[in-house]
């Protein structure tokens, strides 16, 4: 195979920079318009990067971050199996009873469990599991579900900020740069906790003070039997054990010299083994097929295509230019660069999908390593992670989890309108970025 990209001119006599930038812009524009499924767009863009000669296939494959892909896939399998046990419903009902079905207490506890689950599992699955139970309980208490849904959206994005595995941007950053599970917790959990508390205070001031439920309605919720939510106790034990081992693996990954992707995939295979152990081959086949079918392949192939597109635009040289322009804009001043990355990431993430944005910014920031030292570069990663994750709270389209909540709410007859949501969410998101700026300044700058 000839090294087409090594020649100065490619398709129609254009330079690699021009070709890769064109494919990049077209791909991203198509993703943003959402007229075609994004996995299709990303794969077409990836194909064009190769066919046009910007990348050889081997370079394209090398550009795919298989650690991220396997971490995402492994966690999807683990969650798909675990949710069948009813454990999430069990936790939600238990916390509702723990606060004696008090409406405000319920909002706080549902937000806390959403944040915790989102830190350890993906946000979309978390909200898909929490929102139905939340709506059932608010239905029973005859309180408006809107404050709960609003809080769940914010909690999922804030919770997802705190760990390596909580949100795809963190997975991508951690994988590209070698940041560990503990690195994320130690550096991001403190500010995320503060932002979470401030968010709850805001929600209390707007809605919490007026929340009331009658003693009869609360008694109805208190009569819920949390243990009856566990549909498969054996599965519960198996899945919690394996997830516990996997998370311990993430925490220890650096010490044992292993990558999170391997740990997650191994855990998924282990749990699958426990599920099919003792079954005949037909049952095994059925169970295995069913489990693999629950992986969001659209998301996985979107990532695959996206990584190749970004590898192409990086090879073409556009990201070197972008890194240079960014440094020019900030005068090469480290604090200014960090705060700029934080705010630009947040605003972008509020309006467009943060995954393509982060995928592009990773090589850009890596190139700044030529100007900033290793310690300073780590601060830029925290700025990117905070901005990309928290920015998702800015609008209904800011994060996939937001859209999932909105979609569910619409189907359940409790629609969340775009404008009313953004009128409160966007300023609240900006406030969280302001808090993050103060945090970055005090801790690192």
């Amino acid at each position, binding site marked *: 195979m000839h090294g087409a990209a090594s020649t100065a001119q490619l398709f129609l006599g254009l330079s690699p920079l021009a070709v890769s930038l064109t494919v990049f812009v077209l791909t991203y524009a198509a993703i943003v318009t959402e007229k075609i499924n994004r996995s299709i767009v990303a794969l077409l863009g990836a194909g064009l990067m190769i066919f046009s000669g910007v990348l050889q296939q081997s370079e394209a494959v090398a550009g795919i971050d298989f650690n991220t892909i396997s971490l995402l896939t492994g966690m999807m399998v683990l969650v798909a199996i675990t949710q069948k046990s009813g454990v999430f419903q069990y936790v939600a009902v238990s916390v509702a009873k723990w606060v004696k079905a008090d409406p405000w207490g319920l909002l706080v506890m549902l937000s806390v469990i959403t944040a915790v689950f989102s830190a350890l599992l993906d946000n979309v699955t978390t909200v898909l599991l929490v929102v139905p139970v939340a709506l059932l309980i608010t239905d029973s208490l005859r309180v408006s579900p809107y404050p709960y849904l609003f809080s769940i959206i914010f909690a999922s994005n804030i919770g997802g900020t705190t760990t390596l595995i909580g949100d795809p941007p963190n997975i991508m950053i951690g994988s590209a740069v070698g940041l560990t599970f503990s690195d994320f917790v130690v550096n991001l959990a403190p500010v995320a906790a503060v932002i979470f508390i401030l968010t709850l205070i805001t929600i209390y001031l707007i809605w919490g003070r007026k929340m009331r439920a009658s003693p009869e309605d609360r008694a109805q919720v208190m009569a819920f*039997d949390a243990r009856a939510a566990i549909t498969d106790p054996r599965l519960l034990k198996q899945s919690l054990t394996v997830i516990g081992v996997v998370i311990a693996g993430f925490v220890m990954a650096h010490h044992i010299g292993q990558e999170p992707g391997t740990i997650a995939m191994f855990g998924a295979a282990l749990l699958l083994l426990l599920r099919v152990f003792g079954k005949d081959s037909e049952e095994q086949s059925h169970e295995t097929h069913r489990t693999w079918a629950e992986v969001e392949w659209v998301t996985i192939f979107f990532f695959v295509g996206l990584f190749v597109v970004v590898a192409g635009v990086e090879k073409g040289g556009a990201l070197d230019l972008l890194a240079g322009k960014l440094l020019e804009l900030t005068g090469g001043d480290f604090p200014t660069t960090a705060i700029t990355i934080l705010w630009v990431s947040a605003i972008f993430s509020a309006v467009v999908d943060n995954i393509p944005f982060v995928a592009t910014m990773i090589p850009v920031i890596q190139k700044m390593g030529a100007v900033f030292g290793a310690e300073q570069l780590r601060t830029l990663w925290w700025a990117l992670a905070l901005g990309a994750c928290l920015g998702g709270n800015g609008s209904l389209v800011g994060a996939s989890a937001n859209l999932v909540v909105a979609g569910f709410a619409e189907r*359940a007859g409790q629609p969340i309108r775009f404008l009313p949501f953004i009128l409160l969410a966007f300023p609240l998101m900006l406030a969280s970025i302001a808090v993050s700026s103060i945090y970055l300044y005090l801790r690192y700058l």
Partner: protein
Amino acid sequence: MSIQSIPYYPPTNGIYPDTSLLDALKLMLEKHINHVPLRDVDGKFSGIVSTQSILSELIPASARVEHGLSDLKFAGDSAQLLSSRLHDLERRTVGEIAKINVPVLDADCPILEAALLLSQSTSPLPVIGKDGILLGMLSRRTLLTYLMQQAEL
């Protein structure tokens, strides 16, 4: 021969799109029927409402919709919730939940075609005359009873 020779049920009186769900439910329970067709003020067919669709309305939305709760064992009897939702039926109309896109039988539909459509349907089918006027409902039982009589069985 067409279904005109079969004594299908005449249209149920008084069920219009703005009839309350509670009234429609009372009628169905009283007459021991599970489906009732609606007609508008001009007598044209406007949809079908069933005990199943009304029962669905008693179930919390979080369990009814896609990706919703698949299991409500933990919620116990929830007698108060169900009672409250039953009372809500008084304020809601059949027009809100009526199924409109259902197969219909023309008044002169051949019997075999009617048998085919009924075999594929989970409910009786409306019989529609000229200009969409509702003439009645034909159920599987009525058709089978007629066929048995014709075959002298």
